[in-house]
């Protein structure tokens, strides 16, 4: 029964900027969407179509102007900022296009970060979990390197490991391969696919690349703030 509950459910989600001002602009016009557990979904669309806004709303970084958003069946509209932050920290992992690591920390510490934020003090279990994740992405050798001493591909793999640290039900990736060469991009995508298969984690990947989109289970095409396909 639990699997039947969608990981993400959007009902009539709208987002407008400059509400109540003469320059009010609505960028999302009533989005209805469901993502099931274990899905590997691409979110495509031209620049300015509202993909990133939709991703930020699903990632609880932004609030919709209207409509409902449920994460694993939990209504998010009435949660305050602290509750949203906690839900985000425990349920959602992020992979960003650039500047994905915190440069003051090593690769291992970056992977430990989500758990550290939640538990305040580091401990051996957190360290062991981070090492295990780094091992999964094949970066054990580089665990003590600062991000400035790692290639773009390696950094993105660390970011993938970090996004898994809290065992989230959902991982949101914003152009995760946008800054990588073809080989590194393939490697990163394969890794995400493997995580998806092994852990049943739902992925929503924003991409401009149709090649990457076609390697996903489903493609959601957003044009002018509406899902067209």
């Amino acid at each position, binding site marked *: 029964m639990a699997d039947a509950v969608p990981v993400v459910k959007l009902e009539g989600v709208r987002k407008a900027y400059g509400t109540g001002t003469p320059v009010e602009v609505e960028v999302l016009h009533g989005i209805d969407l469901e993502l099931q557990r274990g899905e590997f979904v691409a979110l495509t669309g031209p620049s300015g179509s509202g993909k990133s806004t939709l991703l930020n709303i699903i990632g609880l970084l932004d609030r919709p102007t209207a409509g409902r958003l449920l994460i694993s069946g939990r209504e998010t509209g009435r949660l305050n900022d602290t509750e949203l932050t906690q839900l985000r920290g425990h349920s959602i992992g992020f992979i960003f296009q650039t500047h994905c690591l915190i440069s003051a920390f090593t690769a291992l510490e970056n992977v430990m970060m989500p758990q550290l*934020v939640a538990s305040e003090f580091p401990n051996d279990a957190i360290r062991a979990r981070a090492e295990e994740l780094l091992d999964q992405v094949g970066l054990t050798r580089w665990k003590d390197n600062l991000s400035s001493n790692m290639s773009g591909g390696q950094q993105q793999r660390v970011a993938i490991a970090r996004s898994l640290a809290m065992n989230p039900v959902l991982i949101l990736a914003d152009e995760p391969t946008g800054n990588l060469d073809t080989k590194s991009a393939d490697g990163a995508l394969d890794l995400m696919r493997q995580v998806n298969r092994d852990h049943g984690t739902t992925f929503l990947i924003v991409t401009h690349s149709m090649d990457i989109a076609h390697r996903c289970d489903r493609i959601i095409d957003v044009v002018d703030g509406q899902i067209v396909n």
Partner: protein
Amino acid sequence: MTNWVPFEWTAAIRFLKEGRMQTLFIITGVSIGVAVIVFMSALLSGLQANFIKRVLTSSPHIQLIPADEIARPLRGGAGIIEAAIVQRPAQRLRSIDQWQKVRAQLQTWPDITNVSPSVSAAALAVRGAASRSISLTGIDPEVYFNIVPLPDYIVAGQPRLTSDDIIIGLDLGIDLGVTVGDKLTLTSATGASRVMTISGLFDLGNKGANKRVAYVALRTAQTLSNLAGGVTSIDLTVRDVYAAETIAQAVETATGVQADSWIKTNAQFFTAVNAQQTSNTMIRLFVGLSVAFGIASVLVVSVIQRSRDIGILRAMGTSQGQILRIFLLQGALLGFAGSLIGSALGGGTLVYWHNALRQADGSEIFPLILEPQLFISAMVLAALTGVAAAAVPAMRAAQLDPVVAIRG
């Protein structure tokens, strides 16, 4: 990353370490500011202590003297015309009424440490054809030496005062051509005369005092001044020299005897001390402000530089409170580190200065007072200033919209 260090502390320290040059410059700035504060505070308290010591070396903290005599004209009856002028009477040498009772009363006060009755009178010291007018003080050595440590200033002979002994200043001895063991004649204003033996010579470090002041036993002074059993003043010392005026007023109210504190009798000096303290406080305040603005400006820049990091941390579930603490801690750490170096720098400079600058005779210009309290308060204040200075940038960081922050 250590297990006992909380995440916020680790993040604050790492951010400071990463912006090495910025951190180094601002810690240097804070250090210089704290060094100035520590140096000035310690120097001024040393100088003040020295001044106060000098002022209070040869005088009591409070002196009780008989109230001035005033004329009380008898008003005539009807039809008599009286002149409006009432001439002030000349103040004759008088004793304090019931001084033994006043002394006994004051000896029970916890704020008062010493009570010493004395007789002060003008006299003429004569040796052969030479004579000098002197200020004669009759004292009870056992108590008076607790107030004015005369034995410390004795350069020849003994601080001994039997009924025929007199202790005089070094310069008076030179003027009269006498030394320890020699005799001189004392003639008081009442006409009484007595031959005294010089038991000691003192040097108070003040030529005027060395020429003018002479000490005899209380009974001798009473006899010479025709004040059998009386005293012209009661000298007091108190625990807190700065509370002398308040205590003097309380003494006056309790005993009915006029009480003058050293603060009142050295009003100009005390004003100078106060002015010095005020200017020191102002300098400390402005240095503190410049330190605070320095820290704030560095952290404002740091928040802008780290907006993406803040965005990523927020996306990972970091609360606004945690972000706030990371930046407040950076302010506190900058203030604390600067105060550590600054305290060492300020204290070191003062020690160097104290050793390098000496008076002609090799003695110190000012006493070196480096109280641990000063360093502790400087460190605590600097850390608090750092936190206060970091408040605005930290709030800005905490309130950053994660979406905007990640986008940069």
